[in-house]
């Protein structure tokens, strides 16, 4: 295990799930990558990865007397190991978010890079847990005031738990927008580096409709190029594997949401 990243933004719709899969596919060129849909309350990674009918999902691993093995919820797709989460509200309510730590620890033992697609909220234990468990966060922002403001909040939460910022991805950038200046200003407040500026692209929506990650559906699209650039800038750290395992152990397990 090298490093665990939480892909976070504070609010939804900025492109966390899109970014998680795109960064995952790009990093998979060099690393063993595992992608987890840790947005257990509003899971949608399964739709982006063609796993709508996945039999066993993360939800099945978070229940009390589970009979599924962690490996049952791992699907080899697009060169990555993908752990989708189900969308049923009942399953979410039955899930014990604290168990996420054990699941993540088990998955971490077997992979280089873990990407946690994180919830679009900060209001519950289950929502902050991915940020607590990760080594660093990748903040996905749109160049708007609400998005920047939410991004700052999620970064403060992460820092409070000792989770640093690896960098910032500006997503859904309009053709007439120049984010260089915004990125430069934002760099004063956000840690890490500006990883990329991803244009608004129809290919992203089309990919989602197809149930494929962007890099599989339209590898030559400018948005795909931008995500590859982001992955290349992400200086994945050769962390001490044991360190990570230790941290996962010591993370206090919250009982219920």
């Amino acid at each position, binding site marked *: 295990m090298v490093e665990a990243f939480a892909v976070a933004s504070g609010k939804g719709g900025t492109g966390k799930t899109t970014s998680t899969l795109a960064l995952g596919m790009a990093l998979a060129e060099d690393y063993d990558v595992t992608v987890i849909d840790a947005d257990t309350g509003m899971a949608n990674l399964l739709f982006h990865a063609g796993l709508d009918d996945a039999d066993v999902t993360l939800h099945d691993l978070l229940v009390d007397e589970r009979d599924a093995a962690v490996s049952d919820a791992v699907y080899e797709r697009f060169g990555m190991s993908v752990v989708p989460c189900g969308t049923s509200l009942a399953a979410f309510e039955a899930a014990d978010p604290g168990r996420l730590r054990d699941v993540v620890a088990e998955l971490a033992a077997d992979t280089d890079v873990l990407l946690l697609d994180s919830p679009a909220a*900060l209001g519950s234990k289950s929502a902050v847990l991915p940020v607590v468990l990760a080594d660093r966060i990748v903040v996905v922002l749109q160049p708007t005031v609400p998005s920047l403001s939410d991004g700052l909040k999620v970064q403060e939460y992460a*820092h409070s738990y000792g989770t640093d910022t690896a960098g910032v991805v500006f997503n859904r950038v309009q053709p007439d927008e120049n984010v260089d200046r915004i990125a430069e200003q934002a760099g004063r407040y956000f840690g890490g580096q500006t990883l990329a500026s991803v244009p608004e692209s129809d290919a992203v929506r089309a990919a989602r409709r197809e149930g494929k990650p962007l890099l599989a559906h339209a590898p030559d699209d400018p948005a795909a190029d931008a995500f590859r650039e982001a992955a290349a800038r992400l200086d994945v750290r050769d962390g001490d594997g044991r360190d990570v395992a230790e941290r996962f152990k010591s993370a206090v397990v919250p009982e219920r949401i």
Partner: protein
Amino acid sequence: MRIPRGELRRSRVVDDAAAVLRAVLDEELTGYVVFEPQDALLLGETTRGVVTFEDGIPVLAYDTEREVGGRDGLEGFAVTGPTRAAVHAVDAAALADAHEVEAFRIPPGEPARVLAGDERLAEQTVDAAPAARREEGRDQSAVEAFLDDTDAIEEIRSEAREEARARASEWGLDDVLADDAGDSAAIEPGTDSR
């Protein structure tokens, strides 16, 4: 803020603002909805806000008690728990003046996101909105001005920091708080960049 009195279509207490926003989107309402969170009433407070719509798409938000509009206004009446929602229809022409007030306008997906925490509905709303509306909330100079206001940003950060610590105790996550969280997060602008 003056919104022309419309024709009351229905008024009921709902558990979830999303249901109202979805219905309004489906019926392509032009008019407004008055939201009145009920829990605040029990505490003897009045919280009330208005969201206006054009063909089912939210246009502006206004907190009638605090007299604040726009996204800040919206947050004023984003209270969890049951809320009374009174749906009114108004002629589009009669709403046009009110809709000119730029400062009170909100991006189309914001009410679903802020009032209901419903990201999917927010997405559907944005998808259903006319192209011009989809680009809203993207005023580059406003973003630059926001990022230039280091005091305001430090306030957002320190509030978030306090909130994070308070909630960590609430959730029993105290033990995993970083010891130096206070310091590392308080980095002055300029030293935190690459």
